[in-house]
């Protein structure tokens, strides 16, 4: 498989803090790669750096072979990168419909994708006129993912989709993200290793701002010592 995204040795500062000290990662077309690591390892900053929200000062990021480092977030989004930030980042004062319409990159995007979105997340159809702030945590997360599906994206960056959600909602989200793979490539940050191992074909472990290891998820799940060492779970 050819890589849709190549991150090569990026360094990112937030203020005076050197958060990413050399992160590399590859996402293959049509696959799901999971970024793993303990709290504060730099997973979210990696996604934000790819998205151009906290631009790296060194290193390179290639989308389908085209350099995107140094570009502004809105330009990167227009190049086909969808971002689902952590903490169910929806617009609380806008209705579900307004949230989805806002994600249109060209007129008619939402109408084109509506059937697929409502098939993945049937709840959203029922709640279409409600402000986003009044949805439950799970519904907000579904809306956040659904929003990234409105325009035609090549790559989705999804940050901690299962955070703070009930198990039944997590299962629903897993099923939805699994259905997405094949249609769109995904780089996923996930703390919950059970979820990560179900979804990912490949993984990259970030440890204290460095990419420490990468490989096939099927190999990682067999290596309990490695999981214990880098992720602190058994």
């Amino acid at each position: 498989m050819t890589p849709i995204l190549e991150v090569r040795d990026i360094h990112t500062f937030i203020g005076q803090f050197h958060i990413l000290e050399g992160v590399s990662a590859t996402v293959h077309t049509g696959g799901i790669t999971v970024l793993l690591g303990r709290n504060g390892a730099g997973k979210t900053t990696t996604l934000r750096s790819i998205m151009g929200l906290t631009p790296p000062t060194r290193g390179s990021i290639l989308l389908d072979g085209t350099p995107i480092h140094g570009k502004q977030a809105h330009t990167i989004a227009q190049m086909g990168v969808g971002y689902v930030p952590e903490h169910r980042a929806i617009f609380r004062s806008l209705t579900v419909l307004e949230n989805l319409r806002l994600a249109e990159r060209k007129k008619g995007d939402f109408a084109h994708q509506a059937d697929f979105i409502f098939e993945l997340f049937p709840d959203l159809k029922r709640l279409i006129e409600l402000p986003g702030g009044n949805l439950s945590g799970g519904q907000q997360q579904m809306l956040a993912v659904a929003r990234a599906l409105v325009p035609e994206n090549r790559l989705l960056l999804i940050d901690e989709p299962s955070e703070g959600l009930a198990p039944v909602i997590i299962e629903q989200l897993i099923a939805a993200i699994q259905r997405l793979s094949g249609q769109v490539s995904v780089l996923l940050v996930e703390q919950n290793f059970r979820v990560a191992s179900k979804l990912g074909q490949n993984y990259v472990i970030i440890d204290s701002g460095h990419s420490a290891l990468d490989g096939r998820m099927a190999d990682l799940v067999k290596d309990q010592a490695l999981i214990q060492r880098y992720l602190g779970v058994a």
Partner: protein
Amino acid sequence: MIQKQNSPIQRGWLRRNALPLLLFAFLVLFPFIVGAITDSSPYGVVRGDRMIMRGESVRWQSVLIEAYILIILAMSYNLLFGFTGVISFGHALFFGTSGYVLGLMLEYTAIDTTLALFVGAALGIVLCGVLALVIGFVTLRLKGVYFAIFTLAVAEMFYIFFSRWQLTRAEDGFAITELPAWLDPSQSRINFYYLSLAAVILTFVFIRRLVNSPSGAVFKAIRENEDRAQSMGYNTLNYKLLSIMFAGMLAGVAGLLQVILNKKVGPELLGVSYTVDPLLMTIIGGIGTFTGPVIGAGGLHFLDVFLRDAQINLGGVVIDIANIWALLLGVIFILAVIVFPFGIVGTWQRWQARRHRHPEKPLPDAAAGQD
């Protein structure tokens, strides 16, 4: 016989908008209602071949015109602050600039007065838009307090410039002696009353349409989280520029009306009070709501009118409100913020939503803008 019947859609629209329509009718008839109650003419008093602007109806028209000007200013500030989340400390810049442009056109050019009025008004509004775009382009990349401080600095710069420019008679400013008779508030107050009423209604409708448009949704998205809006593909700088441009132009409209009403142009138009007042009025009325600035600006202005010249007798001690007006205003502001933490309209909406709460019914956000 064919009977004309209103469609259900028309009846629904009428029912939903009954209160604004009644208010509109009241404001249109206001000069005549006050005239009938106080036995005064809304057109003033005939003196020879001229009309003299005397009487209760004319006086109350002035009070309402002042309120309309403040409402337009507060609504324009709310577009920027309440709906887009950009706080500016230099809003008076636009208010004063358009006033000066109009004044200069009327007093310092030799063209026909009516033509000078229209050209001056158009130039003033356009210049406000251009100024807003330039300031925004230079500074909107700065976030939060840095942008606010920059706008304050630019407004103060203009204030100092006009306070010292001899052409505009520095701190004294200059009077406007050339105004078309049909608009001159000292010859035909009622015409100017209706023009101001039209301006306030058009501003309200324009802001409502803009905020409810797709661009308005982006404004609100920026207010909630700019990074998030950017990562959806929106060049947020462009939308913030659009918002500051419209806010500046509308503040310019308020400045034009102020200059025509007072028939005087001076550096006080660029003073910090024309920035702080709309900010307070917006906060008290309800940030990010459509009617909040209307209630905030109207309410504070009427308090000012009713209380400023009042005297309170406390056990034989007479307190002149005029002497403690600024202090009293401060107390009113503190109380309003404590009692109405989301502004009058915002708190009312939350209270209403709680009263009629349905399991899936929204509890409005602090700045939901739904009214």
